[in-house]
């Protein structure tokens, strides 16, 4: 067991534990905060995968914006300050069964792939992953079209959300 593997196992246990708390806890505000913990664990995973830019983007976009949106929405849509009654629907064991089946099915299908257990190549010391990511996002031979379409999508979402949520 190398040090990297131990760190990965600790982080993975943290992510899975936080995700389980997100879907099972009664108080909704605690669920939102456990989501923050899970998102932070995913950011650490990106750091293990040496995708440095995605670490900060994950924290800024997911934790700094989406999680705060969730917390605001939870606080604005409650009649009292407490949650009441059961928080899962009556057929929740069917959902649990479906979840387990999905997990088993996905793992089985992916394990049939011949590259399933490969180890990663080393990143050469002079590789500028940040620079080539930036070039890929704006180069016409690469991915500038999805990048611009994503910005139009965000503009549409901004206008739509403001229009829907404005009190008339």
């Amino acid at each position, binding site marked *: 067991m190398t040090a990297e593997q131990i760190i*990965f196992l600790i982080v*993975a246990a943290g*992510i*899975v534990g936080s*995700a389980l708390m*997100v*879907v099972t806890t009664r108080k*909704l505000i605690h669920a*939102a905060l456990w989501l923050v913990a*899970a998102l932070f664990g995913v950011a650490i*995973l*990106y750091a293990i*995968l040496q*995708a440095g830019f*995605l670490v900060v983007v994950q924290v800024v976009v*997911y934790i700094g*914006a*989406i999680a705060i*949106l*969730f917390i605001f*929405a939870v606080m*604005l*849509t409650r*009649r009292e300050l407490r949650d009441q009654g059961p*928080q*899962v*629907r009556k057929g*929740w064991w*069917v*959902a649990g069964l*479906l*979840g387990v089946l*999905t*997990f088993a099915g*996905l*793992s089985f299908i*992916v394990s049939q792939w011949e*590259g399933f*257990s*490969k*180890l*990663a*190549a080393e990143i050469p010391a002079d*590789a500028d*992953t940040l620079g*080539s*990511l930036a070039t*890929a*996002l704006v180069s016409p031979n*690469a*991915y500038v079209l999805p*990048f611009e379409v*994503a910005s139009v*999508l965000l503009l549409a*979402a*901004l206008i739509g*959300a403001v229009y*829907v*949520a404005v*009190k008339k």
Partner: protein
Amino acid sequence: MSIPLSWFLILSAALFSIGLFGVLARKNAIAILLGIELMLNAVNINLVAFWRYGTIAEMAGQVFAIIVFAVAAAEVAVGLALIISVYRQRNTVVADDLDLMKW
């Protein structure tokens, strides 16, 4: 890096399944959106892991992950705006109670 790719793929499958359980089993509409966020994060882990363990010079994995970030943010913004608007009209966010269009 001594971690085999299979560990990342199994972790993301587990996260995806937990998110799926959250979407199917919770009553509150906001809790359903939390499950969707978990599923999107699982997809992102997969994309970045395949970037790292494949050709590092080929940036498609990271670019796709960035597009998924943008789509997730847009979806959460519009979804939560809709939920708040529905709450103002109907005073509830329990998904089972929003059945005006049922036949």
